[in-house]
């Protein structure tokens, strides 16, 4: 991701470039990061620094690939920077979404809810490759087959602020 794309990350997370200048490099985020438990050395602070300095962020960055959104870094950070959300925004602007994530969003667009059988079918190529079949017996108890239920998505938040919300629920 080049410097001009960083603006998308700032827009998506609601942070400004200078907000990351307060990061003093204490690296407490790195000391608690779950990805380090995987024996992959990552330093969330470096990602913030790259965003601040406008340096390139690559698709192979292990933090971007393996962040589990556990919010341990955000809890430990003296400035309470929501690092998992920054990582998600970077991931999205790099176009790194896996089939599972795409299927999740597509289901939300079609039905307004996540319909699990649909997500499984859409993500099947990844699931078949990833060796998930052997876990199927354990997951069978989950098989909650229900018919998809279409939910009305209301207008975007800002556009309908002036309307009476109680009426929309009924319509």
């Amino acid at each position, binding site marked *: 991701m080049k410097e001009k794309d960083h603006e998308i990350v700032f827009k*998506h*997370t*609601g942070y400004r470039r200078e907000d990351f200048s307060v990061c003093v490099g204490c690296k407490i985020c790195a000391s608690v990061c*779950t990805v380090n*438990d*995987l024996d992959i050395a990552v330093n969330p602070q470096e990602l913030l620094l790259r965003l601040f300095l406008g340096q390139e962020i690559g698709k192979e960055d292990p933090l971007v*690939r*393996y962040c*589990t*959104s*556990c*919010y*341990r870094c*955000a*809890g430990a950070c003296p400035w*309470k920077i*929501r690092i*998992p*959300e920054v990582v*998600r*925004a*970077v*991931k*999205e*602007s790099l176009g790194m979404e*896996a089939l*599972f*994530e795409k299927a*999740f*969003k597509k289901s*939300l667009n079609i039905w*307004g*809810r*996540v*319909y*699990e059988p649909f997500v499984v079918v859409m*993500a099947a190529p*990844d*699931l078949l490759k*990833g*060796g*998930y079949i052997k*876990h199927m017996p*354990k*997951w069978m108890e*989950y098989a*909650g087959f*229900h018919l998809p239920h279409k*939910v*009305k*998505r*209301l207008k*975007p*938040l*800002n556009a309908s602020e002036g309307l009476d*919300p*109680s009426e*929309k*629920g*009924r319509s």
Partner: protein
Amino acid sequence: MEYGYYPGCSLTGSAKKLDRGVRRICEKLGHSLTEIPDWNCCGALEYGDRNELLSISGENLRKARGMCKEIVVPCPACYKNLKDADPDRSFNILSPLELLNPGNLSQIGQKRDLKGKVFFPYYGCLLMRPEGSAIRNKNIMEDAISAFGGDIDGEKMRDRCCGGNQLFLNKWATEKLSNLILSRSRGTVVVFCPFCHMAMKTFAVGRKVIYLTDLLLYVMGENNSL
């Protein structure tokens, strides 16, 4: 008390067990739950655009407006998102864990006890973090287990990440993180998050993984086994 109820997608799919348990326990405690009409997904952890995520979650709050002031949200991801979407706290968003307290546990009608059994209460990430959208009583699972005579183990691992978010992206990562937690704890794993349940259940060999609601239903005499 009357509450609005937001089950979230997983409680109508893979975590139906948790849904049934929450409804039953609330009924026993004398709370009535009314489902928010036509609710939609909260967006979970899949959106990089914070504004989009909050607008998706915010729709649910607008559907609930006029209907209730207090909403019970069992799924920790939904709980966090709905709290984030309501910065001025016009709703009181509660996890079912916040409806329980050491004082009212006796109301559920104890028929069995948990003596001699070891449990590992595992909260996961989103009930405990980030500060500001975390549950208030962070010891409620321990309180519930010890109130019914069970033993507790693995306190240090209770808020470590199971990697559930990576289960369908990098399975090995979830396996490693879950095994780290499982190897440093003993006994039946008690969870509340649908994703933790799925991740733990997938990789726990020879260990039982149950929802807290299953445990309470067992104590109430409604589940025959743990």
